[in-house]
């Protein structure tokens, strides 16, 4: 809490990055819309627009964060600025929690309310006579907006194969990143680099196993994104989580490289801690996924 004067607060110089980043988002969004609407003229140009927008976004993120690192190395960030980043990161992670809560909410709603209800109508009147409503479910089938939807036949993903291994991997990676943090606090640089390296390897391993699991689901289990309530929630939840793990791994690689260049000090290393918090966050989300999507 700001109880005493803390000197001069660093206000960054004017910057064009945010504006260009927004422009890139606009181009990518418009390109995406054109690319998914086949009836629209300009449909074929959509994917290229999308890629162009994405390129601008990536370039801007690279430059922007590069600038932040340069400012940090230039000694512009003191305790006061550091506190701002900490509060900011916590608020950002809170918003991410809310985003995942929406998809977990959809999972619970379908499983507890909508699927049993579809099976529970008056037998005299229901169009879903043979539907039992047991979870996992791909729904009773029927006509969807004019096209016939036949209930997908699939085998649900078991919890005690790859998902259990992935749980171990992520929990271990949480330990290795903490070990790296201890190394940083005790100024043991080799422990820091080694810990981060192990964390990155575990992250990459997780992503690879998840990719294999998707391949297995699509080719052998008949479990696809189109497979009704279970398929939709399974792939959207694990997909968004996998996307976040990928982002987290990229962030880990960045701080690994920075550690190897000698950045961060035992007193001053928000960049490291922000990434570590984010990594613990994707870890916790995974535990929710393991329990509610795979296991129960």
């Amino acid at each position: 809490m700001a109880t005493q004067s803390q000197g001069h607060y660093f206000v960054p110089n004017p910057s064009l990055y945010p504006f260009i980043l927004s422009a890139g988002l606009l181009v990518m969004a418009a390109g995406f819309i054109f690319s998914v609407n086949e009836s629209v003229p300009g449909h074929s140009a959509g994917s290229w627009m999308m890629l162009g927008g994405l390129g601008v976004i990536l370039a801007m993120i690279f430059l922007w964060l590069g600038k932040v690192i340069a400012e940090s190395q230039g000694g512009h960030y003191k305790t006061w600025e550091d506190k701002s980043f900490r509060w900011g990161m916590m608020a950002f992670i809170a918003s991410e929690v809310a985003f995942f809560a929406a998809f977990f909410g959809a999972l619970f709603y379908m499983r507890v309310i909508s699927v049993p209800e579809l099976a529970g109508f008056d037998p005299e009147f229901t169009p879903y006579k043979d539907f039992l409503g047991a979870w996992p479910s791909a729904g009773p089938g029927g006509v969807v907006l004019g096209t016939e939807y036949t209930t997908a036949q699939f085998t649900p993903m078991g919890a005690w194969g790859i998902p259990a291994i992935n749980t171990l991997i992520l929990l271990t990676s949480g330990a290795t990143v903490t070990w790296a943090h201890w190394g940083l606090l005790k100024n043991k640089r080799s422990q820091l680099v080694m810990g981060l390296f192990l964390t990155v390897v575990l992250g990459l391993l997780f992503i690879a196993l998840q990719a294999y699991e998707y391949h297995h689901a699509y080719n052998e289990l008949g479990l696809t994104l189109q497979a009704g309530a279970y398929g939709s929630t399974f792939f959207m939840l694990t997909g968004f989580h996998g996307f976040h793990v990928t982002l987290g791994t990229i962030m880990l690689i960045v701080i690994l490289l920075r550690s190897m260049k000698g950045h961060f000090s035992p007193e001053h290393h928000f960049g490291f801690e922000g990434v570590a918090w984010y990594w613990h966050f994707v870890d916790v989300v995974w535990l929710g996924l393991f329990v509610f999507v795979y296991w129960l």
Partner: protein
Amino acid sequence: MSYTTTAHHDAHEDHPSGIMRWLTTTNHKDIGTMYLIFALIMFMVGGSMIMLVRAELFQPGMQLVQPEFFNQLIGVHALIMIFMALMPAATGFANWMLPLQIGAPDMALPRLNNWGFWLLPPAAILLTLPYILALFGIGDGAIATGWTFYAPLSVQGGIGVDFAIFAVHLLGISSVMGSINVIVTIFNMRAPGMTLMKMPMFAWGWLITAFLLIATIPVLAGAVTMLLTDRHFGTHFFDAAGGGDPIMFQHLFWFFGHPEVYILLLPVWGFMPQILQTFARKPMYGYKVQVYSLWAIGALSVVVWAHHFFTVGMPVPALLYFMYSTMAISIPLAVLFYCWIATIWRGSMSFETPMLFAVGWIILFGIGGLTGLVLADVAADAQYHHTYFVVAHFHYTLFAGGIMGIMAGVYYWLPKMTGHMYNEKLGKLHFWLTAISFNLTFIPQFFLGLAGMPRRIPDYALQFSEFNMISSIAAFVLGAAQLLFVYNIISCARGGKKATDQVWEGAQGLEWTLPSPPPYHSFTEQPVVK
């Protein structure tokens, strides 16, 4: 409370000139100004759209527009007014006034702040682009589902829905970034000695708003993402054949949508007591109890969402729960009303334009609150749901409670921001025209709703003709009156009587210790609050 300020200010303004100043700025005042100007422009755009709607509803039968275009107009009007007029206006005030009120050198994360603003114009482009594309034969215009995106209509809708989904995504990122900035600024940038319970009420209002945004905007983002995948990638979130449920969309949407009402109103509830105490020349009544009430309303707002769709078919216990929890909000809200009235009670009041808007706001927003209590009643709601009664109710809360509150804020702080006094006569004329024509627009709509006129329909039965005609004429006056507002702001920015530092005789708070207009960088040395 007393302050000691060091009279040291940077004389130089180190920023690029011309357009580059505005594209690149990291200064909270510049960004606040951009937010406010953007909000004003979009307010006029959204207002023009509804003028066309009222023109169509002037008489029964179809005169001016096609029903499809009518549907597009009402939905885009709502999205613009909520996300691009009211919210940016509140964020603009937060940017301008929070650092000044709590004695901070700037917002805590200035570059992020700039990004928060520059996400808005692309969102506005995305939302309105389908209108222009339709002129060239691409797609069938903007989103035509109303602002609520209800499935399955939105799953079937045209390309406009996709554009609106991504507009909402950009607006959502903007709001989350803005909220992060507000939270960090309030927790980390307060002047030494300014404890939380010494903060100006505006900071409290915005802090709770920011928490609500962080908690609910991502849920909206999730909901529209599910909608997008249902539309294009074959998921079955909102489709019974796959085990989903269109009603789930309503739950997800209103889990965001109800707190959104308080997101729009809490910043106003924050600065309004400050305006009231200024012009009543006595301290605000019940500071602590107001803070607790704001928290209570913020907390309750996330657990009452299903009262927006009582008629959809819910189990009776759910109906009862959502009815009683909704009605419970009226208790802390009534406490706030009591405090506002007690603040001006026996004060030595003067009625400059901000005070006129503030007092008018108490009365009109009161009507909005009371009619909300009627709608919260499950049994009564079955009659009123989806009628013009609802339309009139939420315009009393969001136009009177939101926009008129913002107008009070604009007149209150404009002299501080520009360094000039606005035209008081014109301001008063603006208030009276707005207040009278607003009531004449929406009181008839209460009666229309009670008589059963459904909302969102471009045609109506003959017995509704007179009230609709009155409503339309008053709406045109209301629209035209806002041109005075724009004119007054522009002429105030360009010149006029010099404003003093204090501006208003009874004004309290750190922002009034600075010159009018404040220097480009203020409080580089933090003041000490005792």
